[in-house]
């Protein structure tokens, strides 16, 4: 049988069996509505409360600071649109980066184009990093929100969120601008990084169940006490009426379990994957000429490998790999249905042909040394085949 190697964990992860286990009762006998007053509902409400408290504990937050949503996109939207709309009388300037996920970028663009906000988009350096100084330089009296991702989903660059948060907190105190808030999209990080919101000095933080071996269609927003949002949807009083609608109970239970597992194993798993990652990068670069590692060599998620293979086009490469049972992606899954090259790779100052040749392998819990050895065996001949039918020769200044 053909070997199958799933290397697209940044797109989504499989459900952890233990997570599935805790979800099952809520797809069966524990069907009650947490808002009901009878026992059937009360049992479920207690379980949701326990899950919320458990999540709060992991994030070093309070239970009432956790809002459950339908995923990373909704959490990002709720944080940005919700905060900006509710607090616009305090200022209409927002700060973000050019390499955010589309859930952040499109929300920002919407506010800019349709609702009269001004947005500053910070550009990363060649390795995909944004510095604390860069953020500080563009802060203004009318800035109300800074949103910067914890780690980039395409190139895995880890941003200095704690330092940024610290600086923003100081700036806020010195300038007496209590309405200046800091949001981070941390969807890619629970398996590997510290999510203590106190240490990170963040006011809002987005998480997504489907990137941490939890359920799809499930996310959360950490929202620091006292911050006011304008809801995106209206209805009952669930999630403090900021996100009304009957709770996705099975999802909430699964999310709590997956976050618990992720954070419990993160240090060990980071060490294991970083080792595999570095050997894999080394393996590709020693077997294939003309490649470029996109992103930072060390300030990088332990599971992310993003490489541009010159002279060939990423989509063709993905399809050839697919035929060999290797599942990777170009840029992010969200962009592979569009023809435009990755906005993240372009933001690194690289030309279109380099962006078009970028491939992302994202490792995960199931990834073994043998899996990667198999990829290293099948990849070079595929590259050679595609290069033999390509007329393009990318200038060497982009890969040496």
């Amino acid at each position, binding site marked *: 049988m053909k070997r199958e190697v799933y290397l697209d964990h940044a*797109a*989504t992860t499989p459900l952890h069996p233990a997570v599935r286990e805790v979800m099952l009762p809520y797809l069966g006998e524990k069907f009650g509505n947490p808002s009901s007053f009878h026992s059937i509902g009360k049992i479920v409400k207690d379980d949701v409360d326990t899950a919320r408290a458990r999540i709060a504990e992991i994030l070093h937050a309070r239970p009432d600071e956790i809002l459950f949503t339908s995923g990373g996109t909704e959490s990002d939207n709720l944080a940005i649109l919700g905060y900006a709309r509710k607090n616009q009388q305090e200022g209409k300037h927002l700060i973000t980066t050019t390499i955010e996920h589309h859930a952040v970028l499109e929300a920002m663009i919407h506010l800019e184009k349709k609702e009269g906000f001004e947005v500053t988009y910070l550009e990363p350096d060649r390795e995909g990093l944004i510095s604390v100084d860069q953020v500080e330089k563009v802060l203004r009296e009318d800035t109300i929100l800074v949103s910067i991702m914890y780690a980039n989903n395409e190139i895995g660059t880890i941003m200095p969120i704690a330092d940024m948060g610290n600086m923003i907190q100081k700036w806020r105190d010195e300038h007496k601008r209590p309405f200046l808030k800091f949001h981070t999209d941390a969807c890619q990080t629970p398996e590997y990084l510290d999510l203590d919101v106190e240490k990170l000095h963040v006011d809002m933080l987005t998480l997504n169940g489907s990137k941490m071996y939890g359920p799809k269609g499930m996310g959360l927003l950490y929202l620091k006490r006292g911050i006011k949002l304008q809801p995106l949807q209206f209805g009952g009083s669930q999630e403090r009426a900021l996100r009304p609608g009957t709770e996705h109970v099975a999802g909430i239970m699964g999310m709590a379990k997956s976050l618990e597992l992720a954070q419990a194993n993160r240090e060990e798993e980071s060490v294991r994957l970083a080792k595999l990652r570095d050997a894999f990068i080394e393996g590709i670069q020693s077997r294939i000429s003309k490649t470029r590692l996109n992103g930072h060599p060390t300030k990088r998620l332990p599971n992310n490998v993003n490489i541009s293979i010159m*002279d*060939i*086009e990423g*989509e*063709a490469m993905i*399809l*050839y790999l*697919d*035929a060999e049972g290797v599942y990777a*992606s170009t840029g992010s*899954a*969200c962009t*592979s*249905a*569009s*023809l*435009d*090259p990755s906005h993240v790779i372009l933001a690194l100052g690289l*030309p*279109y*042909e380099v962006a*078009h040749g970028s491939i992302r392998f994202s490792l995960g819990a199931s990834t073994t040394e043998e899996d990667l050895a198999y990829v290293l065996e099948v990849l070079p001949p595929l590259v050679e085949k595609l290069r*033999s*039918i*390509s*007329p*393009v020769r*990318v200038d060497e200044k982009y890969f040496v």
Partner: protein
Amino acid sequence: MSHKQEPIKGTQGDVTTADNAKSWFYTDVVKDHFFNPRNFMHADAHEEDFNAIGKVGSPACGDELRVWMKVDPETERITEFRWKTFGCGSAIASTSMASEMVTENGGMTLDEARALKPQDIMERLGGLPQRKFHCSVLCDKALRDAINDYYRRIEQFDKIIVEASRIIDPVSKVTDKDIEEAVLEGAHTLELVQQKTKVGIGNPGCLPAVEEIIRFYKEKYFG
């Protein structure tokens, strides 16, 4: 028309993307040409052995296509047609298919080859996802470019057909006619026209002109 149909679903391992499966799957014919491309230009082949060359696109737009053609001067039939492309699955499959179509059964005459339409290539492939239509347009253009090159080389300048249209974007070689077609097919915004034609993606300087043309044809046909 065939290129507007939903692509026929293949029988095994359809290639889809995570977010929008139905817009992406390739037919078995497309996959066969993609995985086993025919007639591509081998590394050891010599350009001098061919008597016509065509080129279109640029890697900046994600597609570049070069073709090398051997034309029998007696019969004006295409006896060999080789290519190289920097492109996606559809670009590789379309060009591979086109190379078979122009050389099979003793080869097309140059006149026959000129009558070949992107839609004909699409039909033989069993359809392409709609957003990949431009891939078959690209090989059609490279073929026309090569035919003109052949006539240029034998100095039959009267046989060179410069399309009665104006190139708007010299990088992607998109003409005002292409934009007109895109608008007719329902692309009424710059974004949609770019999706179909890739105009200006590697050459944003031409975009104001493109927007002007879109407006013109929108008013002409739908105004």
